[in-house]
């Protein structure tokens, strides 16, 4: 299936991008990696008049430490993040999640900013960003602003991005010795959209979990933080008893939407399987650390 006709341009400044967006509105689409957009056009599920290629904007690239945060520019590809020594050191959750994103050829093109801007509830980056309490950096004709990840993803494919704005990057807190992170997802085949996935970001004091962030993908309309269960886990040791309490809480808290291949209760069950695995791994890891 071939794309419909469209015009193409590659601006070399953000001002040009904003001007084009203001001029064309929803008839223009931002093109970065294009791994979602091109598939949509090939299937004729959208027929924009203009593609605005932003890969020429060097300011939108890069992975760097900025103060107490790790900043990743919108144009960083999934492979860039997968291979980055800075990410491995400062945001190991992202390094764990990256190999789950589709396949290598797609990771070589697809971008951090694109994944965040679409906000697919089954995507890895929105989920990790919410688990880490990251911040999304936006820019528009009115200037720059930032939105916390958990305020950015509002509804299915609906984010806090205003018309005329683009995602320029997102940052996450630096990983510390007291942190434990884990990511896992379940899909019918490796690289498929996940049926359910979980990103855990926990802060420990010894084996005591001071806080445990649990963010699910593929369960709700947006990346889903299981706040009630998180509250139950705060200040606890993640032994078998606590984990069972968490699982019971998740069964009550999570209300997954079914899809054509999985019922709601299957997704709920799989979510608890992931929770058990990751919480057990967290406990085992912290228990192995000498006091």
């Amino acid at each position, binding site marked *: 299936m071939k794309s419909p006709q469209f015009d193409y341009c590659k601006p070399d400044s953000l001002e040009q991008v904003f001007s084009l967006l203001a001029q064309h509105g*929803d008839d223009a*689409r931002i093109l970065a990696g294009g791994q*979602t*957009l091109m*598939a*949509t056009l090939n*299937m*004729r*599920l*959208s*027929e*924009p008049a203009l593609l605005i290629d932003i890969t020429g904007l060097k300011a939108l690239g890069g992975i760097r430490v900025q103060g107490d945060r790790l900043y990743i520019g919108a144009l960083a590809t999934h492979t860039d993040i997968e291979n980055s020594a800075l990410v491995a050191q400062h945001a190991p959750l992202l390094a764990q999640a990256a190999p789950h994103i589709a396949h290598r050829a797609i990771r070589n093109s697809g971008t951090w900013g694109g994944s965040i801007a*679409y906000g*697919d*509830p*089954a995507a890895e980056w929105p989920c990790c960003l919410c688990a880490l309490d990251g911040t999304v950096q936006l820019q528009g004709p009115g200037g720059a602003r930032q939105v916390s990840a958990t305020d950015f993803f509002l*509804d*299915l*494919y*609906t984010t806090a991005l205003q018309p005329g704005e683009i995602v320029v990057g997102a940052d996450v807190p630096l990983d510390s010795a007291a942190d434990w992170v884990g990511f896992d997802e379940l899909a019918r085949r490796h690289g498929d*959209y996940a049926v359910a996935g979980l990103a855990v970001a926990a802060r420990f004091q010894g084996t005591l979990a001071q806080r445990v962030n649990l963010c699910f993908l593929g369960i709700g*309309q947006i990346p889903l933080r299981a706040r009630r269960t998180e509250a139950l886990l705060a200040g606890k040791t993640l032994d078998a008893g606590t984990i069972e309490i968490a699982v019971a809480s998740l069964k009550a808290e999570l209300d997954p*939407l*079914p*899809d*054509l*291949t999985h019922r709601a209760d299957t997704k709920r069950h799989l979510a608890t399987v992931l929770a058990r695995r990751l919480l057990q791994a967290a406990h085992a890891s912290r228990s192995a650390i000498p006091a």
Partner: protein
Amino acid sequence: MELTGDIVLAAARARVWAALNDPQVLAACIPGCEAVEVVGPLEKTARVMVKVGPVRARFAGRILLADVVEAERCAMSFEGSGGAAGMARGQSQVQLSDEDTPEGPHTRLRYTVQASVAGKLGQVGGRMIDAAAKQMADQFFGAFQAHVAPVAAPAAEPLAAARSAAPEPIAPAQPAQAAAPSTQALSAAPPPSSCAPAATEWLRVKWFALGALATALGVWVGARL
């Protein structure tokens, strides 16, 4: 795909009925609706531009009404084509019942939709069908609630007055109505003939638009990549 909903609207059943009868209200509430047209007494068409994530699909739908019990319920069958994207067909049922609260008369609106999606929409949209349908339904009923809620009442009064020929005949129509609550069996055969022709027409248009929404739901969900 199956979708059910149960919402309480802060308005009396007659007002809800009138608003649902108003094609302008419906066209304003259906997300992306571009046009609603009467083709025949039992048949309507609608054009809706569906936007979910990266998808932009314009589709055309057709609704056929049946089993109308004024101010109470209706069933409809629908089919819609999204052009290159695929198509959807299905049925939906809507029921209204009184739900009086200390704040005044409210109406409980229950709906069910069963839809199947074919073509590319069904192929690539499978994992998102229910989620997208739910979002569209939430958007519709959110907008609809704003139209019928008391806050909007002053603006809406003239509309209701102008349409008074429509709701009035409904009141004396069915003895069963007086019993009100929500346990009507859908299969009961309604006699709508007690309505004035204009009322019947508004009624049809209203249910049509609901069907258009339901069609939009079906096609749109499948349109989700």
